């Protein structure tokens, strides 16, 4: 009986392993892999990430203490609304979705930049940005003069 269970366990493991082996690393927000990093911006780029979506603003961040590098996926709309610069400090709360040899990729959920907090996703990782009208500044938060 014990032998049968062992064989069955081995089979399940092999099936699972064969399915997952060679599969592309999933690109999604995993709340279990959420980390908080603080670093200095090394590079700012814009590139396509998802089908049927605007290109994303990507920031390459170097962690202060460890000097590890992270490719931080910000959001599509922030390219025009936030002016990041090389050398500026950035704090990111986000989920790691893949690890390269030299850097790790992170989907940002919240960033802190120049004393302001930008919430990019909710706690489950669902996008919190407004897609359209980014340059019209029509948010009517009380009165502006």
């Amino acid at each position, binding site marked *: 009986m014990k032998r049968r269970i062992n064989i069955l366990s081995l089979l399940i493991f092999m099936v699972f392993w064969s399915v997952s082996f060679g599969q592309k690393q999933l690109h*999604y*927000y995993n709340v279990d892999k959420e980390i908080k990093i*603080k670093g200095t911006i*090394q*590079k*700012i*780029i*814009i*590139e*396509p990430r998802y089908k*049927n*979506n*605007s*290109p994303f603003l990507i920031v390459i961040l170097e962690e202060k203490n460890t000097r590890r590098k992270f490719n931080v996926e910000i959001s*599509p*709309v922030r*390219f*025009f609304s936030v*002016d990041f*610069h*090389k*050398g*500026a*400090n950035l*704090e990111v709360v986000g989920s790691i979705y893949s690890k390269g040899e030299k850097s790790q990729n992170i989907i940002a*959920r*919240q960033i*802190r930049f*120049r*004393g*302001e*907090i*930008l*919430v990019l*996703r*909710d*706690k489950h*990782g*669902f*996008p*919190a*940005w*407004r*897609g*359209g*009208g*980014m*340059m*019209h500044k*029509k948010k*009517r*938060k*009380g*009165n502006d*003069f």
Partner: protein
Amino acid sequence: MKKFSIYFFLILFLNTALGADTLSLSFFQNMTDNLFQNRYSEPDQISSFNFYIDKNISGFSFFTEGNYSYLHKNPELAYYLHDIGIDYLKPVNEKTAFYFSLMGQGAFYRSDYEDFNYFSFNFLAAFKTYISQTSIMKSNYILEYKKYKYSLFDFVSHSVFLSFDKFFQTKTTLKSEISWGYKNFLHPYSSEEVIPEDYTEDHHSGRRTYIFVPKIEYEEQGIQIFSIKGLIAQGVGDRIGLRISGMKQWILSGENPFSSVEEFYMVENPSYDSYSWTGYQISSQLTVLVPWDIEFKIGYTMDNKEFHGIESMSLEGDTLDITRKDERGQFEARLEKNFPKFSIFLSYFYIDNQSNDPFFDWQSNLFSVGIELNTFINKKK
């Protein structure tokens, strides 16, 4: 209640019809002791409901936004604004992108301000590039056409904006901007003089009614403006940011086609916009991230505006033979706390406007509290 039901079903319909990705709802309660922003203070409270919906298709974003504002003591000034548009972000390379948007807007005021009802069309083309990783160049062009119920206000405008900024390792940012604009009033002059009815009676009630008396001379219909702006921002640690900016604006040609200009609280007034004045503005702002990650902003803005073509008048309505000049000091404090699902806002303004037209010598306190709720319909990660 009926209006809120209509509003609710409009949101529901648009949300369903568009198969929206994002739905955002907000509510703001505003209190002011000087609704009409003039010598005769009139307090009121404004409740403002806002919704925003968007949908992404093949890199395009479709968006629509509605705002209903109700004035508790002046319900005949309640209004509804609606925007609908599409935009597109096109990267050229890793450092450069274009942004285009088309937007239509409608404003519907109740009886007292129905002259301000309008439909507008707006096209925006923007460009941003990283000259280096510490320096950005931005530029945009905006075309706007507005058609009002009171056709005197109808206009087409073009504006161009260009900015450069440079970030230094000392956490200092320097920014310079120049902008040019041209606003062409399509038919701003009346063939005969219009005498405002009951002018003197309304003059002492907090509200001037029908004061946009068109000039009868046939002069240049367009106003051309040019402005320069400089900004210096300094970060102190990770939680403090300080910003000081200065702006100077000139009217290169043309002048206001109206006999008077004035602004109203929360009403976009076609006679009082960036094309109506020449002068300068100096502004400072301190941003601090206080405990519990609450954003606190405090600022002071001082501006000096001269309204070309507008003569100041005495309280009795007689001309003073001087061009209207206003000097304004504005203090503001804002608190904002962002949660993953919603944000809360609190703000306070104090404005002291000194004018050589005594009717526009005024002070005002404004207080606003609000909540914004975001829900994500298509839960795409």
